[in-house]
């Protein structure tokens, strides 16, 4: 006899992912809504803590899968970052540092004023610095957007993501030191994790071209080989409790500058990338709890608004001097709205290494949820308003 509850529980995840994909296609086709917003909405509504259609996930396995998905997207982000551009136009780097630091200061001040504990405020501020390059690049690829807003949103979000990881590791190090009193553990948690993750990424970027040369493949496209390498790298850093985010980004960045070739037809890792992105965005939204969202909604809302205002202010102020119009400056800031994927994965990761921050972060959960849904829509709107998305009715 088939055990119906077991069957339903077993197929719940694949079914929900299929459902999310279907609704995503429908919303994209009808309303042009970014697919990842729909995936997030489906994940959040059907989560174990909301409608409970999804069973509580085996978090470690799901977290690894989500990290692989995230790793693939981050590898692509790293691969698209042109360090030579930062040298040729230093205003890009200056914009990045300005908007990240200002976001940190403003959110920290707001949170302290809201009478949150200092550690909470520090972590809230560091995580607010980061935009989600994953969400931004998915929207850009999905809508075939091209232009300065797209290009700068990718570069600035990747840079602020790296800055946020650094800041976050430092704050977590402080947190560990305060709670455990062990300096060595604190240093390990921050400095070593950063260094080791970056080194692993660099090593992988050196190993892959050598391996491909040894194989003497007739096909020039190395996309599949790099996808497999990302999966290996993420699994390795995940298991060693390092930072898959930094490792994958570094791998992408160094591969690009070592002239590794990714085929143009495989942008975003093609179908594999699409598959993983459904899974990633459903999973991260499903790990948010309405209880948390509800209790932190007010501060979360204030954080979202002020963070967005600071980002728009910084990119606009520095737009003309960096070579674009004021208008495109505004849209670049707006396009950097997405926040969630990175933050949620980092929070999950932190819980995984024994520091449970999720429950303390109701405002962040609220901000993350809001931006999970609306962030990609704001990115899409800014790309549309800046005319970087092609018109549908074109000959």
């Amino acid at each position, binding site marked *: 006899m088939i055990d119906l509850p077991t069957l339903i529980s077993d197929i719940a995840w694949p079914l929900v992912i299929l459902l999310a994909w279907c609704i995503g296609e429908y919303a994209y086709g009808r309303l042009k809504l970014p697919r990842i917003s729909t995936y997030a909405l489906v994940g959040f509504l059907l989560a174990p803590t909301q409608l409970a259609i999804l069973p509580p996930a085996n978090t470690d396995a799901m977290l690894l899968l989500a990290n692989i998905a995230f790793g693939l997207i981050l590898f692509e982000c790293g691969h698209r970052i042109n360090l030579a551009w930062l040298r040729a136009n230093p205003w890009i780097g200056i914009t990045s540092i300005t908007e990240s630091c200002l976001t940190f200061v403003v959110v920290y001040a707001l949170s302290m004023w809201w009478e949150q504990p200092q550690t909470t405020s520090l972590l809230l501020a560091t995580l607010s610095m980061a935009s989600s390059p994953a969400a931004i690049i998915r929207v850009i690829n999905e809508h075939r957007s*091209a232009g300065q807003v797209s290009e700068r949103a990718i570069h600035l979000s990747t840079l602020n993501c790296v800055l946020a990881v650094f800041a976050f590791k430092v704050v977590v190090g402080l947190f560990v030191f305060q709670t455990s009193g062990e300096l060595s553990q604190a240093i390990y948690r921050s400095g070593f994790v950063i260094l080791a993750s970056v080194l692993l990424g660099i090593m992988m970027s050196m190993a892959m071209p050598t391996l491909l040369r040894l194989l003497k493949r007739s096909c020039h496209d190395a996309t599949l080989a790099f996808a497999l390498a990302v999966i290996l790298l993420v699994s390795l850093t995940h298991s060693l409790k390092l930072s898959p985010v930094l490792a994958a980004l570094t791998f992408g960045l160094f591969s690009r500058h070592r002239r590794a070739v*990714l085929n143009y037809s495989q*942008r975003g890792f093609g179908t594999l990338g699409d598959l993983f992105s459904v899974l990633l965005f459903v999973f991260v939204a499903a790990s948010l709890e309405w209880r948390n969202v509800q209790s932190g909604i007010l501060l979360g809302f204030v954080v979202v608004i002020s963070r967005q205002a600071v980002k728009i202010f910084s990119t606009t102020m520095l737009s003309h001097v*960096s070579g674009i119009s004021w208008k495109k400056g505004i849209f670049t800031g707006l396009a950097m709205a997405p926040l969630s994927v990175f933050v949620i994965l980092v929070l999950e990761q932190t819980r995984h290494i024994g520091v449970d921050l999720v429950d303390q972060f109701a405002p962040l959960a609220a901000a993350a949820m809001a931006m999970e849904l609306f962030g990609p829509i704001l990115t899409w709107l800014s790309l549309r308003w800046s*005319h*970087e998305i092609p018109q549908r009715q074109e*000959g």
Partner: protein
Amino acid sequence: MPIENFKTSHALTMGVELELQLVNLSDFDLTAACPDMLELLRRKPFPGNVTPEVTESMIEISTDVQTEYGPLLGQLLEIRDTLLLAGERLNIGICGGGTHPFQHWSDRRIFPKPRFLEVSELYGYLTKQFTIFGQHIHIGCESGDKALFLLHALSRFVPQFIALSASSPFVQGTDTLFNSARLNSVFAFPLSGRAPFLLQWDVFSTQYFDKMERTGIVKSMKDFYWDIRPKPEYGTIELRVCDTPLCVKRAAALACYLQALSGYLLECHDAPPAEDDYLVYNYNRFQACRFGLDGMIVHPKSYEQTLLRDDIQNTLDLIEPIAEKLGSLSALEEIRQIVLGGNDAGYLRNEYVDRGSVEEMVNAALLRFTQ
């Protein structure tokens, strides 16, 4: 609206237009960067002229009216440096080459200018396929009659210019085996090919153009996509068969080669042009597109078969005295180098073999443009 009068120009003045590729430096595909480039370039005076082209991954530059090789090359270098500087600020690569080796036409988007939108409406996908990059050379003529004479006298030399400038061996990611695959895209347009054999401007304007206009097919000379067409508002003829070379030095040399050749033809050393010259026109044109300098062409008068490489060498010898008078001997030297060392199509193919991918081929073109 009837065609305007042919404006008188100083004979043998010249101007160059280059259509250039705008490349994404991450994946080396074309990118719709023209609006951002124009926005940035508008902030300072441009050393020449810069305009959008039919799709947003293209940008067109043009020089002022020039008379000599040195100043022409000087202006082209200045334009190139200005473009490269703007490209650096915006993370956009700029290069020559008649086709982008792997772009997909369906990814292109039409630049939102009324004429481009109209053309796109009329020609459908052909317009996006028209994301190809050519060099147009204008030669000043004293009258409409002289312009038409020169236009038809030059027809026998069209294959030389195709072979010398050819830089479009790959299309949609595949080696076409052509040296200039770009011209196949031009041929798809119904009003492409050669101009009708008329030698008097009056006859051309009152009989041919007016009739064509009454048919409703054309509104202006811009609607003709001929290999060489008269441009009455500038007082020039415009040679349109060249692929954009990979570097501006070659573009300047091609212009001066045409200038000296035009000077030679206007001196009427050869038999005058005739309708029958066009019997071999399309065949010779194909040979040049397909085989480049190794193409075998048929002389329109003697029907003698000649290797294009040899034909160019002979022409170079004939026009050398005129080039000397015009101050463009260095340009002829550059043309000799192409004949000996091969055209840009051969260079790109070698890069593909050496570097192993179409993306790296674009990277090689980007580097070549800076040299």
